[in-house]
Every structure is written in C-alpha cells, then in structure tokens.
C-alpha cells in the first residue's frame, strides 16, 4: 500500500502563515514551523510548483515560467495559487 505523501506545513491548506518561518496549524491551533512536516491527512495547498502550467527554469530553482495564460510570464514555484483561475493540479502531486 502506497503511503500518503506528507507535505511541509507551508504547502498545506491547514496552515495560516504568521510570518516567513512559522504559522498556525488551523486544526490544532498550535504554532508550528513552516518547514516542518504536517500530518499526512493535511491537504495540498495549490502553488505554482504543483501546477500543470508551471515550467521550471533551467538555471534557477526558484524561478520558472507560467504558461497558463495568453502571454507567458515569470513564475516562481512557491507562489500560492488559491486564487489563480488557471491553476490545474499536476497529476503526479
């Protein structure tokens, strides 16, 4: 049986970012670290890096392109995409 993927808190929907390093676990209400692993049942937060339209750059881990709209534009993997109308989850996520 395949284990369910465990995401970092900052990549889950149950995380409210207080600042750049920590946030609140919306289920337990406790202060947690952004880069700690969240419980396995926590759902994935839409981000460009999980989107089908994101193409990662050749030279930078942190930059790429968005091909989801009429004109391609800069994109970065970590951007939250909850409000992006073109976000389509990559199947392998």
């Amino acid at each position, binding site marked *: 049986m395949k284990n369910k993927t465990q995401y970092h808190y900052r990549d889950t929907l*149950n995380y*409210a*970012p*207080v*600042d*750049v*390093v*920590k946030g*609140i676990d*919306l*289920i337990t*209400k406790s*202060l947690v670290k952004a*880069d700690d692993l969240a419980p396995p049942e926590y759902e994935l937060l839409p981000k460009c890096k999980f989107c089908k339209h994101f193409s990662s750059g050749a030279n*930078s*881990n*942190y*930059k790429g392109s968005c091909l989801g709209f009429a*004109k391609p*534009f*800069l*994109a*970065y*993997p*970590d*951007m*939250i995409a*909850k*409000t*992006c109308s073109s976000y389509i989850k990559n199947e392998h996520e």
Partner: protein
Amino acid sequence: MHNELKLFPREIKGQMSERTQKLLKIYYQTLSSVDNEFPYWYSRKYFELDNEVAAVRRAQALKEAFSHLTAVIFPGELIVMQKTMHYRGSFAMPWLSEGYFMSKEDEFYQASLKRGSTSADQHSKMGSGGGNVTKSFGKVVSIAGKFGIREEEMPALLELARMWYGKSVDDLGNKYEKMVPGYDCKEKIMRSLVCMFDSGYTLPQGREVINYYYPLQYGFDGLIKIASDKMSEVAGFANGDGMVGMNRLYNYQAIKLVLEGVQAWILNYAKEAKRLEHIENDLDQKQEYQEIYENLQWIAYHPPRSFKEALQLCWTLHIAVLNEDAISGLSLGRLGQVLYPYYENDLRNGKIIEEQVIELLELQRLKFTCVDCFASMGVVGGVLSGNTFNNLSIGGTDKDGRDASNTLEMLMLEAGIRCPTPQPTLSLLYDDKLDDEFLLKAVQSVKTGTGYPAFMNNRVAMEFLLEQYRNENMNIEEARAWSIGGCLETSPCSWMPLKINSDPKTYYIPGGSGQPTSVGVHFVSLPKVLELVLFDGVDQRTSESVLEKHNRKLNSYDELLATFKDYFSKIVELLVRCNNIQHDIWRKNNMAIFNSLLKPDCLSKGHLINELGYRYNATFNIETTGTINLINSLASLKKNIYDEKRMTLDELKWAIKNNCGYKTAESINSYSLMDQVKIADTEGVTRRELEHFEEIHSLLMKAPKYGNSEEYVDSILKDWEDWFTGMCRNYQSLYGHPLYACQISVSTHGAMGAVTSATPDGRLAGTTFADGSLSAYPGTDKNGPFALMNSATCFDHSRSQNTQLNFKLHPMAIAGNSGSKKLLELIRGYMRRGGFHLQFNVVDTNMLKDAQKHPENYRDLLVRVAGFTQYWVEIGKNIQDEVIARTEYGEM
C-alpha cells in the same frame, strides 16, 4: 546593602480581554514578513497592457493584484483581513522604486547610492529587537534592514524589480529632475544628508486622513453603479474643460475596476471563512467563522448594518488604501465620530454591549499595530522607527462648533489603556469646550506611559487651515472637521451626511478631503545647513563641497544669518523643483485611484487626485529638523563670537573640526551628549589643545539655551519662525499652490544628527539633535516646565502646519488624582497660550536604561518618541539614547 536601582512602574495599567491577549502574544513573536503576491500580479497585468490609458492600466493592475491576494484568517480574530497573507506583512512596490532593495553589489543599488537615494539608509538605525529582521538567517533573507522574505521568493522579487528598471517613479523622475539647473548640487545635498529624502517615490501618499464615508453610505455595489452611471453620462463630453474633461470617462472606468478588485479581495476572505467553518470542530470558533463569513459577504456588496460590520469595513478600506501605494501616516481621522451612529443604534437596539465594543476596539488596535510599510531602511528606520502612524483623532468640535467628543471615544481611550499598543496612536483635538470627564480620561491614558493621546490645539489648527486653504474656499464650518494626518500633520477634512439603516436622522461625520501632506521637501537639517554656512559650503564629514562657496567673512551676526537664509533658500528651491518633477511622474503613472474615490469630490467630479479632484490640494510642505539646535547655535554664535567676542570664528571652527576634543559618537556607540568621551592627550593632541577645547566647549554650553524663558534666545526663535514660515509660501507645488512649513522631527533627528559635526551650541558630532521642533535640548531646560512652555509660545504657531513639544515626566510627578489634575492644568495652560502640540513620556529614566541593557525583559515596553509611540526594542540606538537623555521632570 546593595545599590540596585529602584524602578518606578507607571501608575495606570489596564487589562485586555483574553482573546486580545492571545493574539497580541502572537504579534510579539511575529517577524516583519514580505511576499511577492501583490507585486507579481500587479506587474504581470501592467506589462500586458501596453498603450492602455494610464489610469485604466494602473486600475487593471491593482484589480489583478487585489483579487489574487491569498486570504488568511487567524483563529480567534473577530476583525479579519490584513495587508498580505502574513500577520505582519507587506510587499515591495518596484513601480515606485526598485534600487534600494537590490543587493549592495548590484548596479541598481550603486546607481541609487550615487544619487543619494540610499545615503539615509547608511546612517539610519533600526532597532534590532522585536519583529525586525535585521539579518538574514536560515531560509530567510533580510531586505531593507527590517523585512524578512523567504529565499524561495527572492529571485522572483529581483526579477520583478528588474522589469521596472528605468520605468519606476524613482527612475523616471530622476531622468527628468536631472534637467533642473544645479541638479548635481541636489545629489550632493542628498548624499550629505542635508535633506533626508526625496518625496515622490518614497512615501508619495499619507500624512493625511482617510475618508470612509462613501462605502459606508453606498456600499461597494452602490459605488460601482455610481461609476457606471457616470461613465454613460460623461462619455464623449469635455464639459468645457479642453485639458482633462474627457478623462472623466477613463477615471470612472478606473474607479469601477479598482472597486471590483477590492470587492473580490473581500469575497476571497468570505470564502476562506466559509472553508474554515467547515473544517472547524470547536463550536464557538465555528460560529465565529460563520459570522465572519456573513459580515464579509454583506459588506462586499452593501452598506454596513451594524457597528461590527462598519468597523470591519473601515479596517478593510484602510488596508486597501495602504496596499494601493507606499503610505505612512494614513490616519483614521475621528473614527469614533464616524462610527458613533452605528454604535448608538446597536446599543439602543440591544445588539451590543460596551464590553463587546471595547474588545472589538482592542482587536482593531492590534490589527493596526500589525501594519507594516515596505520602504527603504532610511525611511523605515531613519524616519519612522518602524511605525506607520495610523493616527486616531478624538475630540475637537462638531459642525456647529460644539464639543464633538462622545462615549464611543471614551471607549476608544479605554481600549487604548487596556490594550497598550503603538497603533493607532491617539490625538486629542483640544478645545476649551471639551468636557473635563473626557479630558481626565485622556490624562489617565497618558499615565499608562503609552504617550497617547497627544494634545493638539483645535483653535490653532483651524486658523492654520483657514489661511492655507482660503483659495480653495474653506470656511469655518469645514475647518472644524479637521483631524491629524500622520503623526502630527494638520489635515483638511469635510463633513459628510451619513444615513444608516432606517434611522431618519442625518449624521454629519468628518472625513479626510485633502491630498497627502508631508510631501514636497522632506526634512532639511537646519544644523547641517549651519555647518555648510560656517565652512563655506563644505560638508565636514565627507569633505565634499555641497554648495557653491559663499565667500563671505561672516563678520557680523546679521551677515551670518543672511548667509544662512541664502543657503537655506537655495536648498529649498532646488528640492522643490526636483520633488515637483518626481510627484508629477507619480501622478502620471502611479496615481491613487482607490484613495481618490474615497475623497470628496473625486466621485462627483470624475477627476482623481492627479487632476485636482480632491477638495483641498494645497497640501505640500517644507519639513525641517533640528530647529532647537539651530536656535541654540545661533544664540551661542551671537553671544560668544559677535556680542561678547569670547572667541573668534576661526577658533570655533577649529574646535568644531576637532569635535571639541571628544571622540566620535559612533566610536563609542552612544548618541547622547552626556555619554560622550574625551580624547586623551596620548591620542595625537596636546594637553594645551585639550584645555583649549574644554574652554571653548564650556563657553558654548554656557551660552543661553532655548526653553528657559530667556528673551535673548527666544527672540532668535521668533525671528526664525516668522521668516521660515513666510518664505515657504514663496514656493509652489506641482499643483500650483503655495507651500507651508511643517515642523516635526519624527526620527530624523537621530540619522541627521549622526552625520552632522559638532554645533556651536555645544552639541557634539554625531549625537542626536533635540527632538520635535520645540523640545528643549536634553538637560538644557533648567527652569521647569512652565518656562519651557513660555519659550515655546513666543511666536504664532498657526503660521505652521504643526509644532512639536515633548515632555518627559517621572511617574511620581503626576501620581494620584491631584497629579492628573495638575497635568490637565499644564495642558490647558499651554493650549491657552497658543501652543499647538504637547505630548508626554511618563516613564522612569532608570527603567529605560535597564531596558537598554536587558531588552529581553522589555518586549512590551512602549515609549513616546516624537509624534508616535513605539516598542522600545524596535527603535534604533540613537533614538533610544535621546529619549533617555531627555530632561525628566520629577515634579510639576
């Protein structure tokens, strides 16, 4: 017996609600955080729309940015929404300026260094405690010396910034200001910190009062309909205005777009509240999410129905304006008078009780305290000390000239006592008509040590406004609507006719109707100008020739003063011309749309801020710093050099060049005069020279000092004030209106003191100037508070937008009821003599010294700086030293 210092606590301490306490605790642990969402979506849309009409292009970009912001709600909140997803978040606006947050090696940074835009950054100090991210760590990169950004976001931010290179207000403005004759000199003025900031791209708006009226009255749907109807009405008509009459169509389109963007932002929060309600197990919290959802869903379309909805809407409007542009000092105005009708209705109908109102006001305080403004280190540290000056005014008079204070304002004071936070700070618009009970409540708040409310003179402000806005038809009724914008800027407002629910009554509520103030010429350092006068235009720190040589011998006091005025006028003229160009670029490409639609009379006229749509546009000013060090220096020069000939000018200059035989303030890392250390005779100077320095310094210190009710020095102050406040009116803003004087220091007295040589009043090189514009130089006011007040009121305060006098009182000096009454009498006395502003630091100096040694024990310690209250740990060392050094009155 050990000699541990006894620390006197403040007399009054409140107790906030448990909910507020929990949320405040989170704030104490929160870092100032930056993310890219807003600039990403703004830039993406903006660059897609080449050739679109400028206002519509900007509006589309704003709409795109607002509607893409991630909505985050923190458990326990009742008032929700914040500038960004983070609790204390902000973001860069590279369309204003992109150079300063580049890496120091970057060519853009080097270019801005050359033109002086980053000089202030190098001499500004940011408090290293609290939420400031002054150094990079782990996955966090520190930018502008205060903000933290995730390393995953940094490359994209730099890429976005590069897209704006040559296109930002900073860059475009610079391209054109270079065409002003003498521009080279302007660069030198900025590099040497004779002037601390350019105006048009740093914080182009603010120091003004927001107007919440239109959304309160019409709701978002109502406003969108007004804009749509107006578009049909004006399309194709110039209306007799061949210049900008046709623009009305595009402006209404822009208004509509931005309203839709902000509406979408609110609805994203409503959606998030709904989602949270579904995943929440705790029934009380579930219910709160449900209420949040209902409130947001309603106010996204309609006028608010209750106090809580109105409070939420005002907060949302406030941060929407703050997200539209880089702004400090967007004041709430008299929010207690704006919200009173809702409060009164809810109370009458049994929908709310006072304790609930106080808790909501506490939570609102916390929200405002979380507001950060992303700007350069020089602006955020050197001027603002990390504060963003969202000032709440209380009191004043109503439309008919009666006492305007109300019970909701009493509750706002109570919330400020129970929940002592830097923001919103409170300003009491003092009038003799105000009720004693209200004033004593304010005094009680002062005794908590938060420094609020400050007291501003209603009558003096009205006199200033009636004179300044005479050409724009201000009348006495309208003058009564004023509030403080920013920390201390008298700002024009108007009465708006509000009707709520089915209440037949019309309430006239005050709201901002003027353009930003503290725009124009930012902070000219008067002691630094004097340094240039004494040394024939040469900056003693850098040895650069800043101004053309005056070639005068300065043989008499009159010649010295005339030379000072010549130099000062030249500096001002150059800065006015350059800053007018910067603001003109701002208005062409970066105009306010959301802020504009809130202010009368943009919506009815169809013109935004850039086309003089506001009711009052004569708001540009000239700011100065270091007034009292200048006045004391002039008194010393007059006495020692010219009247009594105790030394020659050359001897004085020799002593100044050698810092009167003292080490530099920077080398000993202390910025107050009392801590300075003498050079030893082993350090390259002879004993004889040291004795001579000591002699000279002693004469400089003994010269008459401001603040002691002495005619010799007070007459110099009066002459200066009469001349300075008059000369400002010789210059015009880009909007064609005369400028006026603005006399506040904020925190510039630290950074500007740091680059100024010793001054003829005995102040040593690098030490902080006297704060405010009328506070005595620390330790030199020897005759008590009433003598200081006499000196401060030796001229007409209504000729200037403001003056600033700060008092430091030991808690024991005003202890008990009798102490409160004494303090009120002191305030009354000052106001009746025509003083404009008074504020108090009620604190034991020993406690501040202890806090400097053990900051970890004082995360919540608040002090009043100059026009604002800030956490001790978040202010720079040069300002901390100055606050410690201020004369402390132990008795009244």
